[in-house]
């Protein structure tokens, strides 16, 4: 749980300026939505916060610390990709626990967290399936790794707007999650 601050963040690819000096303050537990036409730099901004893109200039702060040169895994963030980026060879539960397993959490704790998250996401009956065995809606419901309690949560998925029902579901989920853990900008 932390606030996120962007100061004059610029991203330049060779001769194209993708992000032209964005200033942004996201308070702790705040729910932020980035809206704009395609190609305006929403995803790039999120990717820079997550650490997947280097920034050309400016500063990104998470919880007051400048994280410009901090690798993604040490930024303690969670991210949902537009196409969900689920590991196709793992079951839902294995997908969800991958990060925790890499961090060598005790097995019992991983199980408790997965069970809790599965109940919260309403997907208890799906945890042993593989991504291909799920529908699009089911995928978007659990693609969010809410159980990791990150400091910051990025989502480039369009799930809040895709369908009315999943929208309200996801919205409420996001709000619940917001209360529970971290600020969360959507694009």
């Amino acid at each position, binding site marked *: 749980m932390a606030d996120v601050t962007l100061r004059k963040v610029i991203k330049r690819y060779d001769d194209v300026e993708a992000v032209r000096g964005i200033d942004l303050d996201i308070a702790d537990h705040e729910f932020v939505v980035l809206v704009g036409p395609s190609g305006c730099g929403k995803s790039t901004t999120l990717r820079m916060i997550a650490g997947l893109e280097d920034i050309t200039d400016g500063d990104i702060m998470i919880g007051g610390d400048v994280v410009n040169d901090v*690798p993604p895994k040490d930024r303690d963030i969670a991210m949902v990709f537009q196409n969900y*980026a689920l*590991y196709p060879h793992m079951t839902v539960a294995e997908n969800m626990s991958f990060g925790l397993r*890499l961090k060598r959490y005790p097995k019992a704790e991983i199980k408790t967290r997965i069970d809790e998250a599965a109940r919260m996401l309403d997907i208890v009956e799906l945890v042993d399936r*593989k991504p*291909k065995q799920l529908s699009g809606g089911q995928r978007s419901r659990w693609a969010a790794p809410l159980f990791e309690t990150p400091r910051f949560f990025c989502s480039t998925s369009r799930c809040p707007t895709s369908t009315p029902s999943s929208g309200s579901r996801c919205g409420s989920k996001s709000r619940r999650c917001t209360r529970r853990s971290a600020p969360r900008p959507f694009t």
Partner: protein
Amino acid sequence: MASTVAIDKAAPTRNVKYGSMSRDRTWALRWSYFFLTLFAIFSLVPPIYMLITSLKTSAEISAATNPWWVFHPTLSNYVGLLTSNQFLTFFRNSAFVSIFVVTITMLISVPAAFALARMRFWGSATLATGVFLTYLIPDTLLFLPLFKMFAVFGDWTGIQLINRWYVLLIVYPTLTVPFCTWIMIGYFASIPKELDEAAIIDGASWFQTLTRIFIPVAMPGLIAATIFAFTVSWAQFLYPLVFTTSTDQLVLPVGIITSLIKGDVFNWGQIMTGALLGAAPPLIIYAFLMDYYIAGLTAGATKG
């Protein structure tokens, strides 16, 4: 053709010939069955001839009878080969060489392909092309300089590599590594970028991304590369012919022709038996891995 007509919205009133699709399909199927049958016959005749000949005695082979029929079937060729220590040595050498070469190839080409496909470093694209170009140099061109190299190496260090079966462990990867690396680059490149980004955010190192995500996801490609490496090293003929000469160092393909052809006397019965027995392991491995390969491709493809 038919599908273009079906989606042509500019001419909704045109009389679309329904059924032309299935007629096309029928003809396509007939033609494919025709050519498939032709090809199946073409490729199955040699092994069938091998099988028929392997069941004959030398007397029957040289007799001017119908070569496509066995009049006095006998297993003497099989018994003769399987009880000869020489043949079993060839077989063992071949097995050792192939298994080691497959292992070495995979250990080199999988990490190499991962690096070339995913870690963008200076010159990686050129290097990837270079890897493939090395594959295009034929072994008929390379065996002389390689021989000289091993000879000089032997003179300098006193380590004799020529006429040792394990020299093939150094030589074969020059054929298998480039091609397998190339196949794996293609497979790894087809894995969506988001998958490794997700892994990075989950805290995986490069090595963990490779072993926990890329290798399992690219398993069909990995198996294709393994089959290729195994087939190449099992069937390779020129290099072992050049680099090994003593009978206890020979691999199967060379062993069969050097020990079963004496001067101008061809022991056809045993040659065919040896070839058939030699062809069996790749077939068995292929049949076994094929199941796995298809399972890997279709796993989770259906709902429920």
